[in-house]
C-alpha cells in the first residue's frame, strides 16, 4: 500500500509538470518550468502490480516500443516496457491475465505521461528493460542514410 501511495503522489507530481510544459516543448526556456519528471530519477521508483489486459509489441502510443496495459486497483495503466526485441530475445513472455510486478516510475512524455518500467517480473521470470538512469536498453538510434549522391 505504501508503494501504491507513492505511485499516486508521483502521478500528481507528473500531472503538474505536464500541465506546465512538455519535454520537447521546453527547449532552452528561460522560465523555471518544472521538468524533473521528464527525466527518470531512480529515487522516485515505485512498484506497480496488476493483471495484464493487453500486450502490444509495436504500440501506436508513444513512446515507441512495447507497451502493456495492466489492471491495477486504480484502474488500467499503460506501461512502457521498452524494446520488444529485448523481451523477445530474453524469452520474456506476457499473456493476458498474467500478474505482473513492475518496478519503474511515471515520467512525463510530451503532453502526457507514461509508467516507465525498469524491471518487469512475471512469476519467476524477470527482465530489466531500463538502466537506473531510465535509459531504454537495446533500443537503437535511428540513423540518417547517407553516402549516395
Amino acid at each position, binding site marked *: 500500500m505504501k508503494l501504491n501511495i507513492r505511485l499516486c503522489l508521483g502521478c500528481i507530481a507528473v500531472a503538474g509538470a505536464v500541465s506546465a510544459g512538455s519535454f*520537447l*516543448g521546453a527547449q532552452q526556456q528561460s522560465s523555471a518550468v518544472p521538468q524533473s519528471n521528464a527525466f527518470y530519477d531512480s529515487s522516485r521508483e515505485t512498484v506497480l502490480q496488476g493483471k495484464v489486459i493487453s500486450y502490444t509489441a509495436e504500440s501506436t502510443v508513444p513512446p*515507441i516500443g512495447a507497451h502493456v496495459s495492466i489492471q491495477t486497483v486504480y484502474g488500467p495503466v499503460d506501461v512502457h516496457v521498452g524494446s520488444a526485441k529485448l523481451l523477445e*530475445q530474453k524469452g520474456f513472455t506476457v499473456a493476458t491475465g498474467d500478474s505482473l510486478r513492475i518496478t519503474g516510475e511515471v515520467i512525463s512524455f510530451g503532453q502526457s505521461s507514461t509508467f516507465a518500467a525498469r524491471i518487469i517480473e512475471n512469476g519467476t521470470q524477470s527482465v530489466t528493460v531500463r538502466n537506473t538512469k531510465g535509459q531504454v536498453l537495446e*533500443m537503437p538510434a535511428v540513423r540518417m*542514410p547517407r553516402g549516395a549522391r
Partner: protein
Amino acid sequence: MKRLLFVLALFAVAWTSSCGGGSSTVVTPPPTGGFNNGSLTGTYVFSMTGSTFDTAVQTVDSFSRVGIFSADGKGGISTTAGVEDVHQFGADNIFSITGGSYVVNADGRGTLSLITSGGTVQYSIALVSSTTGYMVDMISGDLETASGSFVLQTATTLSTGTYVFDFAGIDPASGNPLSIIGDFIPDGAGSFSSGSFEDINNGGTIFTKASIAGGSYVADSNNPGTGRGTAVIGNSNYVYYVIDSQHVELMDRDPDAVVGGTNLGEAAAQQAGTPTETSSFASSSFVFVTAGTGLQQLTPLARAGRLTASGANLSAILLDNNNAGLEIAVPSSGVLNAGTVTLDGDGSGRGTFTFTDTVSNTGTYTFVFYLSSASQGVIQDVSTVMVNGAPVPVDVADGTLLAQTGAPFASSALATAYAFNWSGVSTAEEDFVGAFKTAGTNPNGLVDYNEFGAGKQFLNTPFNGVITIGGDGTGSTGQHSSFAAALTGSPAVTINYFAYIANPSTILVMGTGSNRVIVGVLNAQTQ
C-alpha cells in the same frame, strides 16, 4: 549437377514466394528500366551501420562495416580485389573479400553477395546510377540488419584540402550515443592542418569547435591500391577508404569498452564558393534531417526542417519532430519568420541556425552545421532543455543539410524513377531499400526490407504510394509535402513521411507514424 540446379531452382521459388510478402494475391510488377549487371562495374567503396545480435552475451549491439568490392559488370565479384573492416562485438576486424555475385534488375534493384574470410553476407541493393546506390544487409534470421551505400571508387589517395565530415554512432570508450561533425585538412604529409575542428555531442556532453589539428593519417601499405588507410582524428582512431578525390569513408576502430558499437561517417571535400559570410545568403533555402537518439529515455529521435536564410536572418522556418513516436510540429501551424544564422567565416564552413518557437512556445532550437559547398553540408542538433535550471541537450543527432533549389515544386518536376533507402526503429531496427516509378503522384515500386528478426527479411515487396507536393514545403505557399508508401503483402505496412524536397533529384523524408521513427532519402535514378 542437374539435380543440384533443380533443387536450387525450387529453393529460389520457395524463397521468392515466402519472402515476397506471403500473400498469393500480391502481384509483383515486372521491373522496368535500363539497368543491368553492366551498371555495376568497377570498384566500389561501401559502408553501412546497423544492429547485430551478439550471441555470446545475448545482447543487441550496433555495428559498422566499410570496405571495397570489385564488380566485373557480369554478375561476378573479384576474388582478390576486395577488403572490408567490420567493427562488431567490441573490435575492428579486417576481412578479405574472396568472391561473390550480384544481380542488377532493370529497375536498378538487385542482390549482392559478398564472400569474405569472415563469412558470406547477402545484401539487397538499389542503384541510383552506375556510380552509386544503396544497400541493406539481408542476412536471414536474427543476426543483423544494416543500411548503407556504395560509391564507385575513382581515387585511392587522400587529397589535400578541407574536408567536411559527419560521424555518428556509438562512442567506443563510453558507450554513449555520439555525433561528431567538423572539418579536417589533410596536409599531404600525414597530418591535419590548423583550421581543423570538430563539434562533438557525446551522450549529451557537448564540445564546441574543438581543434583537431595534428593527428595523423597514413595509407595502408599492406593493402595497396585499395584506398584503405588509418587516421587519428581528435582522440579517435579511424580506418578510412578513399572514394574519389572529393570523398572518403571513415570508421572508428577503437575497441569497445562498454557496449558494442562504433561511429561511422563520410567526409566531403569543401568546394570553392562555400559561403563564408552570411551576406552570401540571399533568400537561400535549406532542408535538413537529423536522426539519432533522444536523451530523455535513450529512444530514437528524428527532426526534419526547412528554412530560408537572408543575410543573418532566418524566415519560413518549419521543423518536424518525431521523438519516439511523439510528433510535434514547430510551429504548430504556419511557419516561423524569425531566427538567426551565423557563419564563422574562417574557412571551416561552420555556422549555426537558431530560432525560437514564438507560436507554440515550445522553446529555442539550435543546430550547428559545416558547409561543404553552397548547397550541401552536415548538421548537428545541439538544442537543449532546461532541467533543474541547467541546459541539457535534447538528443544526440545529426544528418544532412541541403540547399533547396527549384522551389516551389510541382509534381511535374519530379523525376520518373527514384531509388531509396529508409532506416528506422519500430519493434527493432528496420532497413528498407528499393526503387519506384513516380507515375505522376502515385508511385509504385518494389522494396526489400529487414526487420531484424527470424523470418523478417522481405524481398520484392510491392508498394504503392502517394506523393503530395506542397510548393516549397513551408505550409505558407503550399501544404506540407508528403510521401506515403503502402507496402502490400503480409504484414501490410504503410509508412507515412513528411517529404523535404531539396530538389527534384533529392528528397529527404522523415516518418510521421507513432509506431516507428524512420528517416530516409529518395534519389532520382539516372542510367
